[in-house]
């Protein structure tokens, strides 16, 4: 006689073995190494670091390999590793003014001190499949190198702020919260909102940011500045009393300039939306800046009815590791509850029949 499915343990073992084989693929082909992933699929690695909220290119590359290129799965692997790491302190705030720039563009000025530096961007490529890449072999020509700029690269937003046109961010000496240690409570302050957005899903933030451009909570953005490059991480051990350099990490920062009509207490001026992500993640940094500004609607006394302006909605749903877990849990067995629903619907149908 048929009895409920048995042998879950054996099935899981077999599924894992199959997964391993599927990941490796055709063994006649060379196995891809984590180092190759790190070097040649760098933007995938960067995205995994950002959403996995752990800056380690090597581990992120390993996660991409292990997850067969499923980047949300890779971010999940990295998060689950990160959570076991002991925490011995917090770094000093990053000084992105002192960033070693690979790219710096502003859309608000034709030219500006420090210049426009395009860097390794897809922006002006023609999106034509390059069939030469299908045939492995030749390394590309080395790019021409200019003398590194030595003059300062001031911030666009700071130049506007000096003129009184850009709202200054309110200073806050309180220790920022940590949403990986304390659950998010609402309303969440801006530091926590930015934390959530920084590790949030790129696609989700992209769509939300896009929705603000299409009229759902619009805030008339201009890219004040995008900078991408290496920034020094400093740490001040209590026993030393001075900061030491731990190393450099790659980051992308975006400052959006947005209109603000002014309020009873503040004159009309520009306001800022801010985005910062690990690695080269320009789309994410821009989307984050749009959503950050949208989430400031309440504080600025603006109407607050679009999805991107509602912090419970945005912050509760931007984390793709949480989202994928809960969506995919629907494939776990639910037959116990379904059984009670079956009986429930049968009862309802019987009641309807009885009334007829």
């Amino acid at each position: 006689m048929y009895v409920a499915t048995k042998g879950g343990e054996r099935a899981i073992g077999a599924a894992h073995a199959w997964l391993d084989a599927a990941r490796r693929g055709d063994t006649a082909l060379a196995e891809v190494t984590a180092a190759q992933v790190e070097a040649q699929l760098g933007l995938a690695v960067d995205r995994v670091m950002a959403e996995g909220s752990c800056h380690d290119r090597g581990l992120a590359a390993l996660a991409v390999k292990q997850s067969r290129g499923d980047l949300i799965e890779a971010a999940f692997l990295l998060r689950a590793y990160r959570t076991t790491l002991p925490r011995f302190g917090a770094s000093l705030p990053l000084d992105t003014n002192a960033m070693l720039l690979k790219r710096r563009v502003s859309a608000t000025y034709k030219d500006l001190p420090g210049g426009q530096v395009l860097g390794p961007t897809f922006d002006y490529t023609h999106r034509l499949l390059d069939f030469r890449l299908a045939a492995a072999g030749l390394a590309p020509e080395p790019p021409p190198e200019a003398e590194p700029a030595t003059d300062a690269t001031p911030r666009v937003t700071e130049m506007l702020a000096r003129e009184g046109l850009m709202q200054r961010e309110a200073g806050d000496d309180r220790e920022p919260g940590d949403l990986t240690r304390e659950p998010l409570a609402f309303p969440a302050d801006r530091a926590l909102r930015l934390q959530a957005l920084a590790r949030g899903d790129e696609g989700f933030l992209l769509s939300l940011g896009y929705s603000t451009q299409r009229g759902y909570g619009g805030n008339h953005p201009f890219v004040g500045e995008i900078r991408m490059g290496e920034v020094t991480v400093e740490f001040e051990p209590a026993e030393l009393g001075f900061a030491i350099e731990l190393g450099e990490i790659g980051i992308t920062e975006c400052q959006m300039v947005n209109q603000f009509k002014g309020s009873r207490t503040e004159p009309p001026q520009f306001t800022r939306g801010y985005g910062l992500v690990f690695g080269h993640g320009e789309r994410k940094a821009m989307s984050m800046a749009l959503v950050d500004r949208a989430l400031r609607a309440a504080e600025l006394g603006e109407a607050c009815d679009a999805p991107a302006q509602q912090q419970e909605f945005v912050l509760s749903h931007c984390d793709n590791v949480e989202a994928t877990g809960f969506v995919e849990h629907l494939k776990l067995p639910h037959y116990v509850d379904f059984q009670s629903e079956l009986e429930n619907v049968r009862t309802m149908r019987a009641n309807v029949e009885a009334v007829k």
Partner: protein
Amino acid sequence: MTHHTGYNFAYLDESTKRMIRRAILKAVAIPGHQVPFGSREMPLPYGWGTGGIQVTAAVLGPTDVLKVIDQGADDTTNAVSIRAFFHRVAGVATTERTAEATIIQTRHRIPERLLTERQILVYQVPIPEPLGKLEPRIAETRRMHALADYGLMHVKLYEDIARFGHIATSYAYPVMVNARYLMSPSPIPAFDNPKMDQMPALQLFGAGREKRIYAVPPYTSVRSLDFDDHPFRPIRAPHACELCGSRDTYLDEVLIDDVGGRIFVCSDTDHCSERQAMKEAAE
């Protein structure tokens, strides 16, 4: 007992466990109240029991005997996976016998056998907020709990009666704990709700993704919401178990062919096999 080297006993580091234990103590002190806690990222996905796993990890000791069930069964894939996880990172003894377990982690069921004071029942909770379907804003539902303002839920149940003639909630059926807090019993069938009332075992609820822990201490009043003229009615399939003949346990419906053939078997596999063994011994 040996466990996977490279990780602390039961995976979480000791300071994290202490944080979770503090949340559990607070939860026990305020029965039915959802306590926010610093839920960690676990190596299993959100929605697959990360809250229950963290609670279990925090209360688990080396001499504990762990049972893990999903849908009432020990051999469902996710139960197998969680049991294997604790075997790997804690090296504790595991069992499929309800009577032998000191900690039982469950998804969607309460075992049929009456639990004892020596046992802890850990529920995996997907959505801890019983009012969430009626009011999605957590800031607002917290206020409603603070004021014990549960009119919204009573209206919902009343609307069920007005439309269907009975309360049409068959699982995750809301309960009042200690006559104070409205609580989600997690998605157990309403059939299991009465077992929560005055249960001798400690009941702990972990919601990892939503970062909440709540508890029902032993011998606490847990009442399923109802009305005087529409008393709470647990739902079960009106059949006997094909294997053990039980008429008072929760049954799963199993399709045996594609022309409408079906049998009903106990959802609690341990309870069912115990009854089968008793039946055989008697014969």
